[in-house]
């Protein structure tokens, strides 16, 4: 049972990351390659205050929000001016810098050894036990994030985001401050990944730099494209498929060596086929063009 609870917890955390990616990539059209690293900024900053200052979940999450938003703001200042493809490169560079900080700022991150012994989440003095209670907590927060996202994009703000994605020149001529809107949505999305990072930190109770490397961002992209960009259902279904599918492989005897290579190769084929035959994913409302 605990195994299933674990998988559902991971799906929740990935859903949060995918929803935030949907906001940034699906709605605003920004191919962010720094997603996992921003999640790491949230996770590390929360874990640091939990470990060193013994703070509870809420204040730690606030610290994570602040730290991640700050990093995202700095990232956006440089990268949102870059053209579509160069935005990926800009965020790739930022990701490298952040990973380097995870590895080398040993006083805070404990370097490659990672932060160990992160306490279980506690809410105003009440401990949330690992397992089912923590899952409920994650589900609640994920639902909250999805609700916030829905409220944002169902308002004219969401239309402005999509207008900018479709044609930034026309959007500007209609009076939308493209750079500002992109910065804002990037920072909001980063705050969501920060929350996912905090949940991940309290779930794993251990953080190390390899957890936030680029393949993780690619996984979230794949989850978004499978589920479908622009929408809510896809941001839940996509991660669910990508988490459950490889786990299911363990039970059909396909767990020999190279299974991860097979898995990654399948992701590759999946991305090609999706772009070819179903660019809106399974539940998306927008075709990636």
């Amino acid at each position: 049972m605990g195994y299933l609870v674990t998988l559902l917890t991971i799906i929740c955390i990935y859903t949060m990351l995918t929803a935030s990616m949907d906001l940034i990539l699906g709605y605003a059209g920004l191919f962010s390659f720094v997603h996992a690293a921003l999640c790491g900024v949230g996770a590390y900053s929360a874990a640091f205050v939990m470990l060193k200052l013994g703070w509870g979940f809420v204040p730690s999450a606030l610290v994570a929000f602040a730290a991640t938003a700050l990093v995202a703001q700095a990232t956006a200042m440089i990268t949102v001016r870059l053209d579509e493809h160069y935005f990926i490169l800009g965020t790739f560079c930022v990701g490298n810098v952040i990973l380097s900080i995870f590895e080398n700022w040993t006083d805070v991150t404990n370097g490659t050894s990672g932060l160990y012994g992160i306490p279980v989440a506690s809410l105003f003095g009440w401990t949330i036990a690992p397992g089912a209670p923590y899952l409920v907590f994650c589900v609640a927060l994920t639902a909250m994030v999805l609700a916030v996202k829905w409220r944002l994009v169902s308002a004219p703000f969401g239309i402005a985001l999509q207008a900018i994605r479709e044609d930034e020149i026309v959007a500007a001529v209609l009076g939308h401050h493209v750079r500002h809107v992109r910065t804002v949505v990037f920072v909001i999305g980063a705050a969501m990944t920060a929350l996912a990072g905090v949940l991940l930190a309290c779930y794993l109770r251990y953080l190390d730099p390899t957890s936030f490397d680029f393949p993780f961002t690619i996984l979230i992209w794949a989850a978004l494209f499978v589920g479908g960009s622009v929408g809510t259902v896809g941001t839940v279904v996509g991660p669910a498929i990508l988490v459950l599918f490889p786990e299911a492989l363990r039970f059909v005897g396909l767990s020999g060596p190279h299974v991860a290579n097979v898995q990654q190769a399948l992701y590759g084929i999946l991305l090609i086929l999706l772009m070819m035959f179903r660019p809106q994913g399974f539940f998306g409302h927008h075709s990636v063009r």
Partner: protein
Amino acid sequence: MKIMTGSGIALCVVAALSTTTIAAAEDTTPIKIGLSQIASGVAADYWSRQVNKPALLAIDDANKNGGVNGRKVVGILEDNQGLATTGAAVAHKLIEIDHVNMIFVAPTPAVLATLPIAETAEVPVISTSISPKVAQSPWGALAQPPADRQGEAYAKFVIAHHFQRVADLTGQSDSDTIASNAFKSALTKAGIKIVDAETYEVNAQDFTAQLTKIRASNPDCFLIQSLSGATYGFILKQMAQLGFRPPTILTYYQIADPQTRKLAGDLVDGVYFIEIPVDPEWNARVFRPRMGYDADGNGALAYDAIALYLDAYAKSGTDDPKKIRETMLNYQGYKGAVGAWGYNGQPVTQVQYRVSRMKPGGGTEVVP
């Protein structure tokens, strides 16, 4: 690789079958060992040769000798991809679905994500990682000397040979960093000068920047740390290309991996390294005939970690994981693949490193 795939699938089928027949009588239920290890990625092939296969070989041998108190031993290998997230999921799977008696897990991120889960479930964890955190857990045991002891072994060599100008090149991994720090603090204590210390990214292929700086510091002894034979190959090659060859080069036993000589050729000749001694008789009798290659320290320790645990299981005469772990830690006179060793009451293996050298033209020799 084909053999491995076959045995991997076979194992899983066995595992699946045994899961379904778990309701059988108590004394015939198999003892299950969960292997949460790397089976994919850049390190996959080395890992498979020197960790996964040796561990499975130990289980195979135990079964050949009639199992543990007549009970069959089953190994269940799951790929943790070297990641914390996957490691946690694997730990839950092994504990809650497979009901394993023990988890054999490496490397560090996967181990440290596994520990809290195993502690809650009261399942012993044996790791061939070098993280000191494992030894601090009431359910953990380290089947490899912790990394700081590795650093001290380097220092011992440097001090014994009276080197005066030492340089250090270290990979950005957990174990290398800990070992390097222990090495440096031991040298500082002994009053030996570290003329330069450089670091590289684990998967790097270009070390020229670091080596250029180290060349300028003109060391008489150069410690290179890496967890991969290929990395040693690149480094030795690029040193030669910079016209840089210090009198003494000290390394870790991965340099004996065939990859190094393939890349660097005779540049590996005369390079010193510290290693876990592998019993040559065991290697020739048990390992080589069935695997087709030689075990290195990792391989031997992986074999021993499993074999010693199973011996202790049999000796303890109980299924209580806590008692089995105690028996294992206090086991006297165990003779294994790395010679006679034991935990001597501590949750850390007491195997000692020795210094060897790459022989010109191939092979290694022990330096007295």
